[in-house]
């Protein structure tokens, strides 16, 4: 029984480890996307270093230069970037 539990835990651990790169890749893609969106609006940022996702197409992006922006898609289909 103990061996089964250990094996199961090991499998979960391995699955989580295998999933990590894709999560990291998604995160990197979102950061890159938001960096481009902020730059398109002509706002200072440099590079987005972290993202907090609040919903679908709704993020808070923290920039390398310390700026923080709320980037979201509003009801009219426009991408809005608000400085926080």
């Amino acid at each position, binding site marked *: 029984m103990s061996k089964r539990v250990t094996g199961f835990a090991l499998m979960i651990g391995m699955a989580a480890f295998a999933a990590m790169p894709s999560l990291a890749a998604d995160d990197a893609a979102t950061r890159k996307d*938001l960096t481009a*969106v902020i730059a398109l609006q002509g706002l200072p940022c440099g590079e987005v270093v972290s993202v907090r996702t609040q919903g679908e197409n709704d993020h808070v992006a923290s920039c390398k230069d310390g700026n923080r922006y709320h980037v979201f898609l509003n009801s009219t289909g426009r991408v809005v970037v608000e400085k926080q």
Partner: protein
Amino acid sequence: MPAKSAAKAEAPVAKAPAKAPAAPAPSAQPPKKDIAQEPAKPKAEAPLDLTSLETRLKETKAIGLMTKIALKNQVDDLLNQFRAFYAGKLQTTLADLRRPYDLLVLKVLSLLQDSDPTLAAAIVASREAIWGILSDRAKFANFASN
């Protein structure tokens, strides 16, 4: 010195017969001349395919979803400026509208040039053709109605 000047003076006379036989050559061999000149001709521009460009921009993985939507917003804003200009509601000139157009193209190119250089090149190649549509009232009206 006089000998040299004499030689110079005579040169055209001496060259004239030499040139004379060469002159009929092109007419004698017209196909050869055409073939030789063909590579020097500039290639005809590929027809502008806006639908294809739009599809490729939508499908490219070089630009993220939010960025694509933001770009679409800016394209729509620019098109609205042209609509207002042609409707007489916007007091500006085509030269003034060229600047935001160029800026928008540069933004798109900066997003594409590293990850999708083929599409970037296609946009560069179409840049003037697209401006040709935007800057022509009739062509723009036709484009905007589609």
